[in-house]
């Protein structure tokens, strides 16, 4: 089952496309990192998945074909918007009661126990909680709904390192204990790289590359060799990034079956390097990647 499936998905605000031609097929069970600079379309994609926005183009389904925003989709998805919006005058206990009333299923005992464990008093109004506590409260409410997928829009931005650690521990526990799939956006690449096992790289409203982190690393390499021969060689390869330094050329390429020619050396690439390269590169190569995943899905 694909928890996220989009085809040619696009969202236009006025004349500007916030997201365009986005095709994804993400199987369940992953912690999907949505990476990209500010304004790359991360929130737009998440809002479309949560059913808060309606696509301008294309289709978007979640949890195995449920149209985003439909009752069936909302029932299985817990969305935590940026800055964890809560009713400021509601106590934590009120927020629990509210969320319980607004959903078909809600594990109140879990929510109370977790807030107790975190030392968040039920009587305190959420506006008076610290940023980290507000994020934890929002996460607790989301998890107590027992969702199939958790969508977290920049949940770590407002948290200090310790709170980030606590937050991610909770998310990881939910993944292992309840099999929740997670989509998490961040512009802090290093952090995402550490926790995500699936990456979507967004740049300027387009998917640059998407895939399992291990696959991405395995399917790319850096080739170093004489700059003089680089142009002829590069023409035969799918080059993501081409860096030249005096006599040396470093080509970040998609791996191919072709043997490495003499005088050239192949190195593995780090995930961070790879993502940075795709963020800098124009989208042409990256856009082939979702198609490959789609084919793999179709082949099943």
């Amino acid at each position: 089952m694909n928890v996220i499936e989009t085809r040619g998905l696009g969202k236009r605000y006025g004349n500007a496309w916030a997201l365009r031609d986005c095709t994804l097929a993400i199987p369940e069970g992953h912690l999907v990192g949505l990476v990209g600079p500010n304004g790359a379309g991360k929130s737009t994609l998440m809002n479309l998945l949560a059913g808060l926005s309606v696509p301008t183009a294309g289709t978007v389904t979640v949890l195995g074909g449920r149209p985003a925003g439909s009752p069936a989709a909302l029932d299985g998805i817990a969305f935590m918007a940026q800055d964890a919006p809560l009713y400021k005058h509601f106590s934590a206990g009120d927020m629990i009661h509210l969320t319980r009333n607004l959903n078909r299923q809600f594990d109140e005992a879990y929510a109370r126990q977790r807030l107790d464990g975190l030392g968040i008093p039920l009587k305190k109004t959420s506006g008076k909680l610290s940023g980290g506590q507000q994020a934890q409260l929002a996460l607790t409410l989301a998890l107590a709904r027992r969702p199939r997928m958790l969508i977290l829009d920049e949940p770590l931005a407002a948290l200090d390192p310790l709170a980030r650690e606590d937050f991610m521990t909770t998310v990881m526990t939910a993944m292992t204990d309840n099999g929740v799939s997670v989509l998490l956006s961040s512009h802090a690449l290093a952090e995402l790289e550490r926790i995500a096992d699936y990456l979507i790289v967004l740049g300027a409203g387009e998917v640059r590359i998407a895939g399992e982190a291990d696959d991405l690393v395995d399917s790319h390499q850096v080739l170093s060799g004489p700059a003089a021969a680089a142009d002829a060689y590069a023409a035969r390869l799918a080059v993501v990034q081409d860096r030249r330094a005096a006599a040396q050329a470093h080509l970040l390429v998609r791996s191919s079956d072709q043997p490495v020619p003499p005088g050239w050396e192949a190195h593995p690439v780090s995930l961070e390097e790879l993502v940075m390269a795709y963020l800098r590169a124009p989208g042409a190569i990256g856009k082939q990647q979702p198609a490959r995943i789609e084919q793999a899905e179709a082949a099943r």
Partner: protein
Amino acid sequence: MTVLTMPAQPAQDVTPRPVPWQRMIWVTWRQHRAMLISLTAVLGAVAIFLFAMGLWVHHNFSVLMACAAATPNDCGALNQSFNNTDWTTANTLLILMNLAPALIGAFTGPAVMARELETGTFRYAWTQGIGRVRWAIAKLVLLGVVIAVLTWAFSQIFEWFFAPFLQQQNTLTVLSKTVFDTRGIAFAAWCLAAFAIGAFLGMLLRRAIGAMAATLGVYLGLQLVTWLFLTKHYPVSVVTSNASLFTGGVSSSLNGLPSTAPDNSPWVLATWNVGHTSWWRYIPVSRFWPMQFIEAGWLLVLAVVLGAATVWLVRRRAA
């Protein structure tokens, strides 16, 4: 291979049972209790004042009536006192009653949706399992019903308070423009319509303060249009002549056309003379209830249409 890793999908999981409507009662109460409590408190305080003042007015009026029955020529001082103090207060309250629905609508309506948009909490509310359409319908209906019931009860107290003045003031009838909308079911209907206008404008403008000002403007415009153009078209008018009213049958003393209706109704729609007989087309005071139902009816339809438009805006509003 992957078939093994796919979890079984129970059929009911795909189309889940919707979240029950009655859950929204607590949600609406918790979210809007400050507004509901203060509305009830203000209406309650004014109602207590009207009740106390009403006892005094009714007492004064019965003294005046007793005097008029016994010694009609010696009641000048009593009459003057009733006119100067009681009627002055009542007249002020009557004007406030005509403005009250606008204020109630501006106070209750705009915040319902606009606050969610202003604070960003709609991104929480609209992604819960209940879905934003159910959420919006339940809130609007519950708040609308509560406001209609509260304001109806309030208008009944005012109606009782005001009763003596309808007898004492010759020019006033229950159809008078300033009186008609404060009694019966019209007051509650106007309050409900004002709430719906407020809620719709709050969703449309996405700003509570701006929507409050707009609600006042739209409401007053609507009431003006109703007074000037709409009410006279309610299909309740009758045609009558003074031949049937006066035993003489001929009013030779008639100069020009009569300006007032036989029963002091303010709704004289047309007058004409045929020979020595004057004819009126007017809305008689006895048509009070049909007029109330017509007015409350179209206001209710307007409120429902605006509510539906609000839900439609909620549904298509993108983040």
